[in-house]
């Protein structure tokens, strides 16, 4: 089926080449990082994780979109998700791929990455995170690919795929829980030391992932003949609305606990992120944008009247996505490091090479997603009840050329 990704329209190839170019730039800067060291980034002794781990954290959430489709479709037999579910699974594949890459590029000694497997250390949450992430990647690839392959053959998928699908549900929950535990189990990092960390992760994951999926589904519908279904998209919108509500609620819980208890350690991070601390406050604008987008998008999504308008749904989805991208990609990680164990504020801001490497990884993710979606769309178009009129892509293009 992979060969489907090797043929496509001019627009498809332009997009692929664009991504490859971005990847190329990112790779060049990564080589630079590889030879110079992570000093090329904005990270420091005090803020020792930055944008890389932030993106990783955010993308774990995005990977969740699949399960929000899998549960209704497989557990509750919600047929309207029959077409969109593969998009969720492949999005998960792409997101987890990026997660792994972000971990990889964040490593000081990437060539020793296999040490995690060669010296397995079950007491480390990182070990479990690697395990659940690879497992989730595998599950989604296998489930998605097999289902699609069977569809192409015109046969129902083998029975074991259903078993895997059921396994994938708790597994998806586990990737967020375990990722939350990476942070929530550290002494002396008050911002992270919260019992509802995992719950917050899940809530934001179930909002950000499906929000992205809505956007992607709309794009897919626009660029191909494959329509995941208007109702399916609406239903996903509802999921985003609930999840976003939970997410904002959880954030409120944290704020209350910190400020009502008035324990300085609990407050510092919030202070820094939203109001500034010791005269530092580089993230303040971003965090407020995130907050405002969260509230606005929530308002748009909660009210069915606005949510049902597709354009508004699209805007709200973008807002949710951006809001959570800031919240997880920047605020959560950096907030955990500020102030540092000495109570000092050392600020962090990504450097240009760092940002370009991040962009490169996103481009890889987008490429993986493009390829997987291309395959899925091609298969769907082929097996659709309403067929493509003719297979004359080449001629159509040539005709265009003659008109020009």
């Amino acid at each position: 089926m992979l060969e489907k990704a090797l043929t496509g329209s001019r627009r498809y190839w332009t997009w692929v080449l664009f991504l490859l170019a971005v990847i190329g730039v990112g790779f060049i800067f990564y080589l630079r990082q590889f030879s110079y060291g992570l000093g090329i980034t904005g990270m420091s002794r005090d803020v020792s994780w930055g944008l890389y781990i932030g993106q990783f954290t955010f993308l774990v959430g995005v990977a969740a979109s699949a399960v929000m489709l899998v549960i209704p479709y497989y557990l509750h037999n919600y047929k309207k998700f029959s077409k969109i579910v593969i998009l969720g699974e492949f999005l998960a594949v792409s997101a987890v791929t990026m997660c792994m890459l972000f971990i990889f590029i964040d490593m000081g000694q990437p060539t020793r990455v296999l040490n995690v497997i060669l010296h397995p250390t079950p007491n480390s949450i990182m070990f479990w995170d690697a395990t659940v992430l690879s497992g989730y990647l595998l599950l989604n690839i296998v489930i998605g690919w097999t289902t699609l392959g069977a569809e192409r053959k015109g046969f129902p998928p083998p029975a074991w795929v259903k078993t895997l699908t059921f396994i994938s549900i708790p597994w998806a929950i586990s990737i967020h829980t375990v990722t939350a535990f990476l942070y929530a189990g550290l002494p002396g990092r008050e911002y992270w030391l919260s019992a509802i960390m995992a719950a917050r992760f899940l809530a934001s994951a179930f909002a950000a992932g499906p929000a992205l999926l809505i956007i992607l589904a709309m794009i897919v519908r626009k660029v191909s003949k494959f329509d995941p279904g208007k109702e399916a998209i609406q239903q996903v919108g509802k999921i985003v609305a609930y999840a976003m509500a939970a997410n904002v609620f959880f954030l409120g819980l944290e704020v209350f606990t910190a400020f009502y208890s008035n324990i300085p350690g609990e407050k510092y991070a919030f202070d820094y992120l939203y109001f500034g601390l010791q005269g530092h406050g580089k993230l303040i604008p971003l965090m407020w944008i995130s907050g405002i987008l969260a509230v606005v998008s929530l308002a748009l999504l909660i009210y069915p009247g606005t949510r049902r308008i597709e354009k508004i749904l699209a805007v709200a989805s973008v807002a949710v996505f951006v809001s959570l991208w800031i919240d997880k990609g920047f605020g959560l990680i950096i907030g955990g490091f500020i102030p540092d164990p000495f109570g000092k504020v050392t600020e962090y801001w990504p450097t240009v090479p760092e940002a370009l490497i991040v962009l490169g990884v996103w481009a890889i993710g987008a490429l993986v997603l493009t390829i997987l979606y291309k395959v899925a769309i091609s298969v769907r178009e082929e097996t659709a009840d309403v067929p493509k009129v003719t297979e004359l892509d080449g001629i159509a293009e040539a005709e265009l050329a003659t008109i020009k």
Partner: protein
Amino acid sequence: MGALFSFVVVILLILVAYVGVAAAGLQSIFGIVIPYVAVLTFIVGVVYRVIKWGRSPVPFPIATTGGQQKSLPWIKQAKLDNPSSTTGVIGRMVLEVLLFRSLFRNTKSELRDGKLGYGSAKWLWVAAIAFHWSFWIVLLRHIRLFATPVPSFVNVLENLDGFLQIGVPRLFLTGVILLLAVTYLLLRRFYVPQVRYISLASDYFPLFLIMAIASTGILMRYFFRVDIVGVKELTMGLVSFNPVIPAGVGTIFYIHVFLVSTLFIYFPFSKLMHMGGVFLSPTRNLANNSRMVRHANPWNYPVKVHTYDEYEEEFREKMINAGIPIESTVLPEEFEEEFKEKVEDAGTPVREEE
């Protein structure tokens, strides 16, 4: 049966080298004589085979067309799968030789409830690519043993190959990939019924042999740790035609060398020659331009044909009756009038008489 036989032969080869070196002390035979013979056989054999193929004529342009032909200018030609130019052919061959493009197309059919379905089947391609490329890189890495100073590209290759810093000495990934891929290729011969059915001893033997070569290589690098300085002394001696047998190089090395020598000797006589043959395959290396450019057949010869005159001779009367023009000017009398009339009826000019 073929598998067992091949397995036993490889084991015997290992034993021969082991006994020859460890017990009989024939280091110079296994370290010098046999390698020389092997390399010579390999070179002469491969050259002979390739020349033999190359000299045999390609009487007809029989490219397998895998896509749209070059046709009207507004119809998009499949330039790689149905090349009409040398560039296209080169592109097709490069993709074929380096990326196994045809194998990439592989599918697996399935019959269920009277319906045939075709699924993607890329594992063979994956394993084949992994196998051939890692084998090639492993070979290139061995240049280290045959050149002083070691060419820089070999060092680059080793750095990339040992990118994942596992163990000391660093684990070369290609060695592991080679072994895994060859194992997969072997297992599919055991477990895929159709492949098992077509497999011959000559299919199992190279797999076992290469498996043994990779295994002995890995064993001597990571486990038995042969004296690398001694090995290099020996290999440099071979290339400089000044062969020496340094003391203290482990028997495993000689086993490895003997197996490699066996592979070299076996190569030109076996299907392994597909390495050279793939370049010469007329269904792939010819352009499909035979309507544009005449392809000459070196052994073209005249054949007996049934000429028009013979044909007309047989059917002249019937043709005339049917009003079909004829060539002959000598008409049977009774047809003379009728014929002219008929031809005129048909609106065809009567043949001008010379």
